[in-house]
């Protein structure tokens, strides 16, 4: 049994320790935000966060995740109450087919946690591992910029707020 902490809740998983996190998230925990794209750590559709770092969940076995904080796109907010990053992606209409968007959001989230005011250059460099085939890159960039602005002004008025 491996104990996984996902979005603050703990789960016992009896899957084989070598099972990639993505399969456990989608098949066992019904957290379908992270997507299966290539399964080889090349496209970024499966990106989630572990202890603040963006990782490819399709090539990370659950054996290495005991006791570490996993955050998926579901941890950023809900459909009724989207988080600041999700709100920004909606406002900028950054999704076309939407398949890459959860991964984009998680990598952007990891960036904003480390660097709340990234330059365009830094956003581009950080999101470079994530592929989008629809070509909404300019909207995604705008969404990340918008989220950064929202979050920094929220932090300025209420320091307890900020990136979840």
């Amino acid at each position, binding site marked *: 049994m491996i104990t996984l902490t996902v979005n603050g809740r703990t789960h016992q998983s009896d899957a*084989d*320790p*070598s*099972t*990639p996190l993505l399969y456990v998230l989608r098949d066992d925990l019904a957290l379908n935000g992270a997507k299966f794209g290539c*399964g*080889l*750590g*090349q496209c970024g559709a499966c990106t989630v966060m*572990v*202890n603040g*770092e*963006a*990782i*490819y969940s399709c*090539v*990370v*076995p*659950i*054996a*290495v995740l005991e006791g570490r904080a996993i955050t998926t796109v579901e941890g950023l907010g809900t459909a009724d109450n989207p988080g600041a990053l999700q709100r920004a992606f909606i406002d900028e209409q950054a999704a076309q087919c939407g398949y890459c968007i959860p991964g984009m959001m998680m990598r952007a989230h990891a960036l904003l946690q480390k660097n709340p005011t990234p330059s365009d*250059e830094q956003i581009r460099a950080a999101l*470079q*591992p994530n592929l989008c085939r629809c070509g909404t890159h300019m909207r995604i960039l705008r969404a990340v910029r918008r989220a950064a602005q929202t979050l920094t002004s929220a932090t300025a008025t209420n320091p307890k707020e900020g990136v979840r």
Partner: protein
Amino acid sequence: MWRRILFVVLIMTVLGAAGFVAWAWEPALALNPPPDRSSFDRELVQRGAELAAIGNCGVCHTTAGGKPFAGGRPLPTPFGTIHATNITPDPKAGIGQWSEAAFERAMREGVDRAGRHLYPAFPYDHFTRLTDEDVKALYAFMMTRDPVRVTAPANDLAFPLNIRLSVAAWKLLFFHKGRRQLEAGHDATWTRGAYLADAVAHCGACHTPRNALGAQKRGQDFAGGSSEGWHAPALNAQSPAPVPWTADSLFTYLRSGSAPLHGTAAGPMAPVVHNLGGVPEDDVRPIAVFIASVAGPPSPERQRMADELIQRLSNPETVGLAADGQPGAAIFAGACATCHSETRLRGAAGAINLALSTAVNAPDPLNAIRIVLDGIGPAQDRRGPLMPGFSGALTDGQIAQLTGYVRAQFSTQPAWRDLETTIRRIREGKDQS
């Protein structure tokens, strides 16, 4: 009596020091009005471009995101950080006012136009062996680049190395000035390759071990060295490659960045193969022929082991080595095995079986650790194989388990020691030089 001896010793020391300073002193050469671009022969400029690519000038003399050849890139060394200078023809920030004689003195003697000794991070211990026409071509190429007015940051070296005169002492001990001497008994291709590998590409700058004062050890050419925190594998008979390199496989590797039975160039070798992909084949083939000759033909025993390995991996029925139950086995199965098949020659995405990997079979775990941490990928805007890095996913202890498992599973070499310490040091930014 003692006073007299002391006096004589003192006089001799002063005279010796004065003699050294006089010997080490180099005159400033006159400022030269920047030569007109059109004064250079186009073919000479083109040849200079190829030589600069083979010599990797742009790799050190260009900083990340900076203009080509404008310098500023930090080179970590065991002695401190050296910043590559601006070698564009800008008259103020670059070498625009350098005459050809000043350029040649820098290349051949490691002395800049103003007469200052240059640190041997600039490999003039190799460039001193350039032919006159190649120095001319390189000058023509550099002086026809776009001038950039950016001054490189100052070097960060500890005393006494921050004093340029210390370089003169280093030269006295280790620097052998002079053009390359012809070696008898070799054909034209080998001779050309030996020249290009030594005087231009300076392969030995990384692949030959260095002594405590940073000079390449004599008599240990290509016995394996280091570069920017990476292990530069031995190219001689001690090469850790499980399948011995041949002139053909080296040519494929140097030209395309990977070879089917060896894998993909990574770390500081990646820009080298990228550059060699863009120069005439006639320059790369001789280098491959020469480097293959450094190791010489493999012993029958070594060749037999390589043949057996290829045979085993070419037969998908065969089961791999048994090392299950080791702590890294589950990590390997979940993180690596999709691409790096345990039993076949190649897995998904064309990744090699790690039994073929030089990094996995090398005496030093540095490269294997760095590849697990940061992956392998083409530079931005270029294409090439992509392996994701695992620095965010795996802890130091987990990477130690994984690399330990991979070593046991895919190599017959002895286990690496102190993996976790090495991994921690790399993550902390130590072990950079």
